[in-house]
């Protein structure tokens, strides 16, 4: 269930103190639909813990414009390119519904990860879980399960 304070169940595994330290690096923001949060190739300086709403992760395809690859919604993490050099966005992201998110400052979170090994481990694990879930979902989509077999 969404925790009204942190706005995200993702940080539920952290202690109260750890959670406050992480949350202190960010602030709650609200966006109207159609707000571009980041562009492919841009500086990955923030990440979003989505409290409500929906964001489309997209990429630009020649002659087709932006194509949505994946949606990120309430309770999910948007943006992980900030953890691994060269800290640039691999894709773009735009809100498709009124969206509320806890926006964390990536450079501050990176410092936390590097200076507090225990917290760093927990945060890296949260990120890894998100990545594994996305990878699984992408693989299942690649299977094209709903396709007409005929």
């Amino acid at each position, binding site marked *: 269930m969404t925790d009204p304070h942190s706005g995200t169940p993702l940080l539920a595994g952290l202690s109260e103190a750890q959670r406050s330290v992480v949350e202190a690096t960010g602030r709650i923001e609200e966006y109207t639909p159609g707000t571009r949060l980041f562009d492919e190739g841009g500086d990955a300086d923030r990440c979003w813990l989505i409290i409500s709403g929906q964001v489309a992760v997209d990429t630009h395809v020649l002659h087709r414009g932006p194509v949505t690859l994946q949606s990120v*919604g*309430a309770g999910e993490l948007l943006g992980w390119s900030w953890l691994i050099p060269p800290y640039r966005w691999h894709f773009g992201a735009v809100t498709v519904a009124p969206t509320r998110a806890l926006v964390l400052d990536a450079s501050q979170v990176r410092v936390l990860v590097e200076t507090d090994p225990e917290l760093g481990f927990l945060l890296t694990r949260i990120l890894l879980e998100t990545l594994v879930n996305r990878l699984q*979902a992408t693989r*299942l989509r690649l299977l*094209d399960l*709903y396709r007409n077999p005929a």
Partner: protein
Amino acid sequence: MTETSDSVTLTLAPAGDRLPEFRPGQFAMLYAHGIGEIPISVSAIPGDGTLVHTIRAVGPVSRALHDAEPGTVLGVRGPFGTAWRLDDDEGLLLVAGGIGLAPLRPVLRQALACRSSRRVILIAGARTPADLLYREELRRLSDMDGPEVVLTVDRGEVGWNGRVGFVTEPLATHPIDPAHTTALLCGPEPMMRFCARALLGRGVPAERIEVSLERNMQCGNGLCGHCQLGPLLVCRDGPVVGYPVAEPLFPVKEL
């Protein structure tokens, strides 16, 4: 009624005796004259003796049923098989993939008709927005104070503002009360397997997860052995079974 490029919804009125009442999750054996007979779930149960089926054309028999003109006489046998468990007041979480939405639709309709306080959530996935069944009906539902409807597609298209992704993604985060949720899953087996695992991970008890199995059928009533899956005859002991029964059978290939 045309649903998508390869599926239609047919309403069948009895030409002879009325069949006994179907329950959500059960199926009929539909016979296209001279071509063959296949199992098709009920996708609505109007209560006036008519039967509603949504059929996706994948081969000769389903294609013939799909192409049937109004007035065509079809053979119908049923009801067969087990039904979804709907016997308590727990919240209902329906997860459907592709044509798997058809057997879950009577549950949605029943939930709406009862107007109980039971919370009903539908998470439905399809290949593209154009492959989503019952789009108008689902849009109406999500505009009402009825079931919560989450639609997600593998590939988005211009103008699609719903989710893009596999059903397991909203399933992992949509707010539910795991201890008081009954989950009904219907779709391709890998989908049901991954969804069931995600639900177990969220704390939904295995015995509150039900899946609908698919196997080739011939007699439909436990006589020929065509639909055998491990110890089960899917036409008689299924298609709806609890996850504890289905789990060890999922990797078993059709016998």
